[in-house]
């Protein structure tokens, strides 16, 4: 059995997929008899000129041994954790600093055309390519992520889908008239499109939102939209909920709205499918579309509120269709074996450098 450090990146006061991934991975490694702990450093994305320092700080961390105990393997996850040095380093890549990659030039990136920013982007690219190239095993949490790695950094990696964190506990109950949204409240998740769709959705349909805001001004923006259309009776912000409540919310929803822009992976997709619920996604939702197939197990529409409202209304007016899509979703992930033995595959891959 090995001594393993999982390298996580913590954005203080937020909770997202990365946190779930790190804690789930540690749990699974321990259950298989390994000695595991985490090393997490806080990451601040602002100011952007500090990003080089933060990457360099990770590089200074010596994780070959800790407290007199030799560390057999480190598993890096997200920028800049993979800058850490170790002879046996696996990466299960969540994402690089996306503002310098696929989000560059979009409203989701703060990297401007200032020559200093362009230099920053180039320096990060080159350094990422170097340190990711040091890894004995390279993988990504989805094909979207491994494609990004191949296209931008010229490094190929294996796809290892993270299984949903609550394993076999997902359940299905008769649907109530609400759409569920789960995830961090930030612009890229595009919850605003769902809120803007509500006025033209049947007015008995509610929207339940699980997640906390992690962008300044985002709640004001949502509240303005809700005020504008007098939607407060139909919208409920639940913030963070415990596992049982989340399972219940998934089990009883009519459908799950998850239409972020070019998502890396999207735990929510798998959780919805595990709960036998259809997913409403957008045609540019990235990793989500590795699972959601329109008219098979969900509805994939243009990322605008008209298309989203039409999709929701379709499911409201034809609940049998919603059930069918949801059931297909569950069958799809059962076929993939993610819930049953997804972790075996992940652990096998990530620990493969120990074999050499």
């Amino acid at each position: 059995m090995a001594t393993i450090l999982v390298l996580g990146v913590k954005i203080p006061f937020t909770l997202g997929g990365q946190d779930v991934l790190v804690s789930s991975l540690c749990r699974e490694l321990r259950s298989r008899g390994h000695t595991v702990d985490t090393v997490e450093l806080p990451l601040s994305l602002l100011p952007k000129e500090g990003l080089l320092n933060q990457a360099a700080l990770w590089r200074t961390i010596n994780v070959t041994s800790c407290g007199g105990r030799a560390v057999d393997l480190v598993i890096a996850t997200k920028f800049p954790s993979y800058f850490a040095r170790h002879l046996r380093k696996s990466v299960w890549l969540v994402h690089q600093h996306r503002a310098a990659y696929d989000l560059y030039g979009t409203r989701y990136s703060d990297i401007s055309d200032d020559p200093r920013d362009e230099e920053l982007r180039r320096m990060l690219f080159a350094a990422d390519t170097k340190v990711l190239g040091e890894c004995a095993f390279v993988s990504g949490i989805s094909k979207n992520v491994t494609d990004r790695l191949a296209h931008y950094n010229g490094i190929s990696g294996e796809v290892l889908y993270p299984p949903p964190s609550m394993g076999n506990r997902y359940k299905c109950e008769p649907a109530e008239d609400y759409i569920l949204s789960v995830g961090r409240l930030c612009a890229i998740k595009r919850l605003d499109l769902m809120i803007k769709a509500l006025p033209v959705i049947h007015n008995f349909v509610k929207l339940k939102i699980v997640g906390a805001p992690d962008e300044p001004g985002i709640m004001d923006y949502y509240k303005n939209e809700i005020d504008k259309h007098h939607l407060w009776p139909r919208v409920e912000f639940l913030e963070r909920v415990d596992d049982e409540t989340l399972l219940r919310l998934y089990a009883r929803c009519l459908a799950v709205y998850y239409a972020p822009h070019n998502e890396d992976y999207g735990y929510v997709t798998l959780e919805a499918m595990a709960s036998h619920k259809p997913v409403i996604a957008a045609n540019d939702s990235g990793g989500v579309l590795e699972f959601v197939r329109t008219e098979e197990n969900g509805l994939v529409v243009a990322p605008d509120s008209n298309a989203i409202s039409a999709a929701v209304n379709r499911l409201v007016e034809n609940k049998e269709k919603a059930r069918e899509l949801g059931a297909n979703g569950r069958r799809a992930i059962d076929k993939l074996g993610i819930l049953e033995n997804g972790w075996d595959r992940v652990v096998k891959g990530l620990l493969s450098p120990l074999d050499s």
Partner: protein
Amino acid sequence: MKHDSKLRLAWFSPLPHDEGGASCTSAYVSSLLLPFLAKHFALEVFCNNFSSFADYTTHHHLTAFQRHKDNPFDLFFYQLEDHISSRFVRMYLGCMPGAVLFHDFIFCDHGPEPMLNSSWRETVARFHDESHAWASREVRHQNAGALALREGGLSALALFSNERAHAEYKRSVEHSLIKPHNGDAMSFFLPLPVPESCFDIDRGGFSATLGYCGLPRIEYRAHKFFSALKALKEPYKLIWLIEEGDRQACLELLREFGISSVELVAGRSAQKWQEILPRIDIAVHTLFSVYGSPGPYLAMSLASGAPCIVTNFGATEYLPESVVFKIEPGDTESLQLCQVLQRLLARGIAWEGDLQREYAREQHYLPGVAGQLVSVLKGRAGRLNSVMQRWKELERDARRELLRESRELFLKGEPDLGASECAFIEPKQFWAKSIEPIFEEFSWKV
């Protein structure tokens, strides 16, 4: 560096296989000009996805800087228009200056946040004068506005496919990377090319068929056009080239005006228009907006010898009266349209089209346009090269400044621990002993 003595040219453009590429002028121009340019330059094409384009060496635009570092390009070339597929070009031309072919100079799409908050004026000022301060990180640089002042200012060589855009540039761009030198112009009008086959279209028959490719929006004057059709005494047929997504809107408009003798052709693109042209006797290219231009459609209609009706405004205002039928926008627009259509239909015979073809051959003949572009690029290569050399110095300068900012950020606000009993490492020492070597390792230095 040259490849087989050809200058290396990096070509940035939306391409036909991009989302929306089929209806995009830049993609159309790329399809036509690249085969000519490939004879004179060692070409690499940069676009916004990872698929390849024809037989050209094609890359994602974000990898351009690495390719430039490994094997420097002599020229960067950008195509820009008011279309979402051009956003990546608008972004990138600010990172590596080059020649820019503007199809629009007034944009209704202001671009994403990084462009809205662009400090391009400070960058241009520093380009010319090293003592000018770098833009403050704290300040928001308000750039909202329809004119492409940023893109015009950051162009090392500005080309325009319509004269109105060129006129706007000359009138409004004050801060620019380029300054006139020895009377050499650094901005040119370069008309849109048209495939040679358009000139061969036979206008022998006459079937009273009108061709229209305007979008069902008010600025394309469809409502005025259909109003005119309703009042027509002569029989006619209409072929309307539309985008499939607009079908419903088009049908509603036709119903509203009671226009029934219509063939809707979906898949609006220059290529589709070229297929329709042999069947058209009269082409209608009305547009009343400060945004946009008729694009290649009007040029192709002229090349085919068809009589063309345009609005006397914006990009088409510059066309000679002898070549097109101009309609004044306003209260009598429908009446004017009706009168022109009536006159043309009543002739009952095909339009000779010699004037139109001659004009189009002078302006839009593909080998001619390609030749002009090659000539301009080669002729200005020296000046472009000196802009790029100066830009390279600016990049080094920027890197130096970024590294200084990083160091200062690290040390900023660090309490003076020297006197504290708890102090065991001084921040400046930590920087020097631990962080600087990392920066060295990654060549994060000037």
